[in-house]
């Protein structure tokens, strides 16, 4: 195990260097209680099994070297009874050692599972309902006051150090909620309601992914998790509770008109307007989200491409290509950009 801290540092350094520009998604770089404990279990098992593997390989090599005493000699070899007995003892001992190691792993596993399930017994500070859809995440912050309920898509802000309860349901097929830095997977299954608990231990931006194959765009079903201080989190929540702001410029106003009178309204909703479609992401604060269609970064250029023909970016997704006129397109994009 002495090599493992160095190895561990090297692995994490290499990986975080590669992903530092966006959110991280390395499961050993634990930023939540769950992931951290699992990483500890991982390093324990990895250390022991690495030693075991080296020993077994050494035994194979030693056997080959010893076995090649006289390769040209085709005679049968017969081990002496004493030698056979020694081999029986050796093999039995190694099998026993295997059993002991496995038993130790079992104990380690149970104790980790136990520690993790204790999180579920603490009262939740935040409850979020996550609905998996082909191929995006609907994230709903539940609140006793219905008007305080916040709905967002492919984005989840959580406060650091607090217990977050996730209620996981699916609107169509099986998905699996997975933010590697925070915790292991939990499936979203039609007809079942699953619950999981998170406790983030440091702030940062982390990438979530769909862990269960769910059709054409399984690869691009992402979720960004932003872990913030309690204060920042509350500020964010407050801002999300607001309805969409009244657009200021003419272009933006025209954009809203196109949105509300045109095809967008069939599926999307923007609180504070007449748009109340319920089958696609809520766009009330779309400009504050990191990605468009959980695929490309949220820039004006990408937004333009997405609205014009999202199939080019995420083929098979449910948003039809919209042959809007250039003017309408510019206006809609300008309007969406105001929805901070």
């Amino acid at each position: 195990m002495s090599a493992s801290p160095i190895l561990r540092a090297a692995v994490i350094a290499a990986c975080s260097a590669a992903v530092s520009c966006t959110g991280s998604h390395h499961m050993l770089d634990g930023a939540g209680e769950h992931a951290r404990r699992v990483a500890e279990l991982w390093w324990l098992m990895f250390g022991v099994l690495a030693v075991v593997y080296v020993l077994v390989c050494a035994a194979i090599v030693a056997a080959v070297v010893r076995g090649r005493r006289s390769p040209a000699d085709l005679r049968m070899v017969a081990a002496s009874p004493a030698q056979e007995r020694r081999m029986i003892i050796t093999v039995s001992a190694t099998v026993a050692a295997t059993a002991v190691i496995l038993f130790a792993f079992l104990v380690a596993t149970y104790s980790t599972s136990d520690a993790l399930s204790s999180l579920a017994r603490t009262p939740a500070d935040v409850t979020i309902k996550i609905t998996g859809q082909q191929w995006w995440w609907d994230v709903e912050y539940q609140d006793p006051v219905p008007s305080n309920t916040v709905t967002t898509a492919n984005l989840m802000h959580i406060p650091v150090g607090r217990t977050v309860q996730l209620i996981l349901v699916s609107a169509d097929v099986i998905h699996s909620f997975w933010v590697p830095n925070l915790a292991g997977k939990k499936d979203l299954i039609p007809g079942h309601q699953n619950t999981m608990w998170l406790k983030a231990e440091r702030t940062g931006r982390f990438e979530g992914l769909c862990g269960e194959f769910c059709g054409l765009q399984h690869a691009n079903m992402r979720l960004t998790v932003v872990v913030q201080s309690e204060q920042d989190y509350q500020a964010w929540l407050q801002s999300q509770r607001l309805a969409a702001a009244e657009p200021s410029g003419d272009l933006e106003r025209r954009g809203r008109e196109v949105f509300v009178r045109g095809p967008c309204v069939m599926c999307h909703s923007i609180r504070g307007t007449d748009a109340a479609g319920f089958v696609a992401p809520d766009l009330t604060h779309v400009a504050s989200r990191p990605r468009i269609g959980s695929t490309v970064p949220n820039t004006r250029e990408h937004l333009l491409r997405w609205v014009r023909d999202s199939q080019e970016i995420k083929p098979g997704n449910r948003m039809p290509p919209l042959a809007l006129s250039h003017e309408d397109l510019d206006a809609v994009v300008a309007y969406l950009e105001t929805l901070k």
Partner: protein
Amino acid sequence: MLCALAAPGCKREERAFRVEPPQAAIAVGTRLTSLQPGTPLPARSQENEYEKNAFAMNEGKRLFQWYNCSGCHAMGGGGMGPALMDDKWIYGSSPDQIFSTVVEGRPNGMPSFGGKIPNFQVWQIAAYVRSLSGNVDQIAAPTRNDNMHVKTQEQSAEKVAPADSAPPPPQ
């Protein structure tokens, strides 16, 4: 036997995500014929290629609910709006007539979806609507959904020959 299946097979399963601009254009109403300039579909007004394509009809079925057609027509059995699985077609049963009905709207409650839905999706919905009365390629028609069982699946729908009836006088 495999050869016999081959020819329609390819088309029946095709999944087209990118559609050409005329089809992607938002459908606009007040047109008495669906023969739109530059539109490859339908070649003849009586034909809708999507009636042979399983994926497109399944999309039509999804959109039928997403766009809340089921709000009035229920699952095809009718409610506030007329039933879609019987032989009565007030405004015509051909694909282009259904297309116009969706896009232009009709008196007595059918709203116009012109300006809201792209052409190709209207054709997908039209294909699905005709599957309710068994008037499409049955092998490609949708089967049951993962929801409450309220009617026979489209693939097993009895074919009902359309008996077009005249539109009722405006009230």
